[in-house]
């Protein structure tokens, strides 16, 4: 299965371009770091609000910056897929990459659960209001899992041997 994924992806022109172009990899890395900053800057702020910190702001006000966090996530999803298509073998064989993916899944399920079932309740949180315990848990899961995604991403070249 993983052999098939590797050979199929490596046969594509995108994969070839990613590893032969001098610029493609460093450019995508730069964009990946910019996306990371946008995501952590806006989602991290919302997580702090969910934790009951930064209480002087209403939840809705903090949430209005979230489209920029989504933009950061999309940038990182695209550049991340490009890295994977470029060198699938080095990621599949890397335990740090699997940890990164696991925390990405936790962060993703957490935010989807929150946005689909709790959003209305959250939008009622005005400035000065504390947050219910459930929201504190969601905020904590979010901030911890995003920093773990960052950590395992950063560990890719050291624990496995991805470039």
């Amino acid at each position: 299965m993983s052999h098939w994924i590797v050979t199929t992806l490596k046969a594509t022109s995108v994969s070839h371009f990613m590893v032969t172009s001098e610029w493609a990899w460093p450019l995508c890395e730069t964009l990946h770091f910019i996306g990371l900053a946008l995501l952590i800057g806006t989602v991290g702020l919302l997580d702090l609000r969910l934790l009951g910190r930064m209480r002087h702001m209403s939840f809705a006000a903090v949430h209005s910056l979230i489209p920029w966090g989504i933009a950061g996530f999309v940038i990182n999803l695209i550049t991340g897929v490009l890295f994977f298509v470029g060198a699938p073998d080095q990621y599949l064989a890397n335990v740090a990459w699997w940890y990164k993916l696991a925390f990405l899944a936790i962060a993703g399920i957490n935010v989807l659960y929150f946005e689909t079932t709790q959003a209305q309740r959250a939008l009622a949180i005005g400035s000065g209001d504390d947050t219910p315990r459930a929201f504190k848990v969601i905020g904590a899961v979010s901030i911890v899992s995003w920093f773990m995604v960052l950590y395992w991403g950063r560990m890719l070249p050291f624990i496995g041997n991805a470039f």
Partner: protein
Amino acid sequence: MSDFFATIEALPFSTWLRESNSIWAYPTMLTLHTVGLALLVGASAALDLRVLGGGKTLALADLRPLFRWMWIGFWINALSGVVLLMADASTKAAAPMFLIKLGLVAVGVVVMAVQRREVFAPSAAVTPTAKSLALASITVWFVAIAAGRLMAYPGLFFGL
């Protein structure tokens, strides 16, 4: 000056950073540098994007606590940056891309300090100066990230 960097690089601590296989050496310093980046550029970008027109329901004055996060990120990166520099002092200190990055960070910090006064000036409206500063801030930090990344690819950017 190059003697100075060679001496730094030869210190036991620098040698340990460079040569140890420990996860606590170079990898941890790089991770801290990335966390600092996320806090500094993330908090800064959140403010800049608000000033430039995103998230209008958010009162600007409410974003004042973001500056604390920017400074926390800045100091994490100043310290981890010095440590990372020590490991390869003579190579990095002589690399044009490193000097470019250092210059960009200096400009970014000045913009940040000026921004704090301008954005939270008594008038509630966003002034054209505040907008220019926000644009300068987000541009300088993103380009600084690019310069930092390009330090791993010496010579790639027009030979720098």
